[in-house]
């Protein structure tokens, strides 16, 4: 079907145009490139909405070949193409929506604050939108990797936007290196997948099959042209899946590669909202969902994903409890929430994972933008202990922020509740059969309590109580361009959970699981049913039977824990002048505040170890290898210096040498020739 899908490439192309405009002509334009970005992302958003509704009415995924990077007959070509199906259409919608809102918000956050270097800022933001949208639309893993790297570049450029200070460039460097470390494994995975299957397509087109399908054939029957390099196919596919997972863990900030994300908060807050909360960090999770047909084949990989996810959810949540700065709390909560998504995907909850991705994108973008608004109001001071009582001064921000917080904490009926509940429910159903998943579920469940606590600790410290500084008493006010995005997102944070109200559907018998149905359409091999089939038939992963009691029990348990967390926060912090209760934790607080010393050992690995090894290698190189070279040369120089002294200039000496030489020669020849 022709029509809007023909324009799909334009969704990504528009921000690219605005990138070029902002970079080269931004400084001559009234808003320094912002208008170009807003126009472009608005256009993308409209196209994405159009695409979304087209996909809704159209079962088959849309694929299109765009550009052949390298064309060879054997073994595989490197191609760029687009794949629009239910998953990517949804993701396109999320990314374009938040990009658009962030561009609008930036008008207030950056332009009105009189920042310099705005063309660079908007160019970076536009380039990011382009890369992210291209990543989402990628039709094969190779292309996905390319744009996965490019979003990393944009992240680097935008974190380091304020390059004249010391911290942002350092944070940008750290972000890039840590994610690069993950991408190293991802790159091996991509190369390996291409070498194994001869294709990295997510979906089969024109007689060729996608690599998950080939892997499935290799496991179920026998497939030709699948080289497993001497490994058992199951083992090899698990290895490949885990290699790709390396990139996912880097980008989605999963333990132990999460350390870059809190530092990345050095970037401008709208950047944090767009890149480090809603979209780029989601790229990892999206990638797992994108190639879920491959992950579903490997129970080991799934268990690792789930366990890492559950652990990260809990681990990051505990660190979020003690942070002083509003963006740091949000950063750790982001890590924690992506842990939930990984938990869901690992536990076979494809829909739950994507559902949480969707709701989280909305409410976390909202929270970051809200935090940005607060930071502007506080004249760029992020310390929550210097805030307090802002709810009267900033009502719009307060109510929207509250909506986002309720969603994050998982309070019914806000969006976060529905998605987090489904994540935990899927994990529980699997956990009842398998202790590994049970452990992951348990960690996720405990994290719910911490989530409720730190979220509302943040809300109470920021907005409630008495103002603790002069600035907090009369904060800076800001215009519509910051309020409008907040309002839009606030409204969405309330309602977006309604797209998939599984417990309510169970209870009432009504058909309320819209998102489930959404993923039941689409390409045959990309539907949730097919994934379910793979999980049960090929991997032998079984959920316990879906029952109303279990579902409601699970929901009630997580809601109860979340409310308990909120209640504790209320008791401790919703007072006119709260104390630093976390000090009572003593040494535990120190550990938490230092992030379990994760940064320390990674910095040690990067600087203490590697730099010392490098220095040792340098000494070795200069001393031994170059020393050998110089040694050879000085040996010949020295020898020459000595030997030339035979040339005394005295004829007698020459004659003596001649004579001695002749005698020796004669004696030698005589002895050899038998003259004597």
């Amino acid at each position, binding site marked *: 079907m022709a029509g809007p899908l023909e324009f799909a490439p334009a969704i990504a192309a528009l921000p690219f145009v605005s990138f070029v405009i902002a970079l080269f002509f931004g400084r001559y334009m009234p808003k320094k490139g912002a208008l170009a970005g807003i126009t472009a992302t608005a256009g993308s958003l409209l196209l994405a909405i159009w695409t979304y509704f087209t996909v809704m009415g159209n079962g088959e995924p849309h694929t299109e070949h765009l550009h052949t990077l390298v064309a060879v007959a054997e073994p595989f070509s490197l191609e760029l193409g687009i794949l629009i199906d239910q998953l990517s259409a949804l993701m396109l919608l999320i990314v374009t929506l938040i990009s658009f809102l962030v561009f609008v918000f930036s008008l207030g956050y950056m332009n009105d604050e009189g920042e310099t270097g705005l063309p660079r800022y908007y160019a970076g933001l536009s380039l990011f939108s382009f890369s992210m949208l291209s990543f989402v639309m990628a039709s094969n893993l190779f292309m996905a990797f390319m744009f996965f790297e490019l979003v990393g570049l944009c992240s680097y450029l935008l974190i380091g936007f304020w390059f004249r200070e010391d911290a942002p460039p350092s944070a940008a460097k750290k972000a890039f290196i840590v994610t690069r470390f993950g991408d190293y494994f991802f790159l091996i995975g991509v190369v390996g997948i291409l070498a194994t299957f001869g294709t990295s397509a997510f979906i089969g087109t024109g007689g060729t099959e996608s690599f998950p399908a080939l892997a499935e054939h290799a496991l179920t029957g026998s497939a030709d042209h699948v080289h497993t390099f001497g490994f058992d196919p199951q083992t090899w596919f698990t290895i490949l899946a885990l290699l790709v997972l390396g990139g996912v863990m880097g980008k989605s900030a999963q333990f132990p590669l999460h350390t870059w994300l809190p530092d990345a908060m050095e970037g401008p807050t709208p950047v944090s909202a767009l890149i480090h909360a809603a979209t780029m960090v989601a790229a990892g999770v999206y990638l797992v969902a994108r190639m879920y047909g491959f992950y579903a084949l490997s129970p080991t990989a799934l268990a690792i994903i789930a366990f890492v996810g559950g652990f990260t959810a809990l681990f990051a949540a505990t660190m979020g409890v003690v942070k002083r700065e509003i963006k740091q709390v949000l950063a750790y909560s982001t890590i924690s929430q992506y842990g939930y998504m990984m938990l869901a995907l690992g536990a076979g909850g494809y829909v739950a994972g994507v559902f949480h991705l969707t709701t989280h994108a909305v409410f976390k973008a909202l929270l970051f933008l809200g935090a940005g608004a607060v930071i502007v109001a506080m004249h760029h001071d992020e310390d929550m202990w210097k805030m307090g009582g802002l709810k009267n001064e900033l009502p719009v921000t307060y109510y929207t922020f509250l909506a986002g917080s309720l969603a994050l904490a998982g309070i019914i009926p806000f969006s976060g509740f529905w998605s987090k509940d489904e994540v935990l429910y899927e994990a529980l159903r699997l956990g009842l059969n398998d202790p590994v998943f049970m452990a992951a579920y348990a960690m996720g469940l405990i994290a719910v309590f911490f989530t409720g606590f730190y979220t509302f600790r943040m809300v109470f410290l920021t907005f409630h109580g008495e103002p603790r500084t002069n600035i907090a008493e009369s904060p800076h006010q800001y215009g519509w361009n910051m309020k409008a995005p907040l309002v839009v997102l606030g409204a969405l944070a309330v309602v977006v959970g309604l797209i998939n109200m599984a417990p309510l559907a169970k209870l009432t018998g009504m058909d309320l699981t819209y998102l489930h149905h959404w993923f039941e359409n689409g390409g045959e091999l990309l539907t949730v049913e097919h994934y379910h089939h793979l999980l049960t038939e090929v991997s032998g992963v079984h959920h316990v039977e879906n029952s109303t009691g279990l579902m409601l029990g699970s929901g009630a348990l997580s809601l109860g824990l979340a409310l308990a967390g909120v209640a504790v926060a209320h008791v401790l912090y919703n007072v006119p002048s709260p104390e630093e209760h976390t000090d009572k934790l003593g040494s535990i607080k120190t550990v938490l505040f230092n992030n379990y010393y994760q940064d320390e050992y990674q910095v040690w690995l990067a600087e203490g170890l590697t730099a010392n090894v490098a220095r040792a290698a340098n000494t070795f190189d200069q001393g031994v290898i170059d020393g050998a070279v110089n040694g050879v040369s000085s040996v010949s120089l020295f020898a020459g210096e000595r030997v030339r002294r035979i040339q005394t*200039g005295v004829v*007698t*000496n020459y*004659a*003596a040498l001649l*004579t*001695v030489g*002749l*005698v020796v020669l*004669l*004696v030698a020849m*005589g002895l050899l020739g038998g*003259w*004597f």
Partner: protein
Amino acid sequence: MTTRPRLKLGSHLLPGLAAVALFTVMAAVFLQGNFPAPAGFGEGSVLRSIGMAMFALEPSIPSANFLVAFEIIDVVLVAALVGAVMLARREGNDSSGSVRTDGGRGDDR
């Protein structure tokens, strides 16, 4: 005042020994050697034969033709004599300021 010649060897004994060694080696070799009886030059004056042989005037005498070599030696002799005269002549008329090189020793002696 003359005394009989004395062999003042001093530090040159060692190189001298080399010459002695050479002689020893050669003598040892030669005395070991066995030569057939010499062919000799047959009857007649050797001097005449040399004269004839030098310019190959009598083909029966076994020898090479040295006419060209003779002429070249002639030229070389003349050249050597002229060269010797050139070398020996004091240069120019400034007898005091003749060219002197000092063998790299400076003027400190």
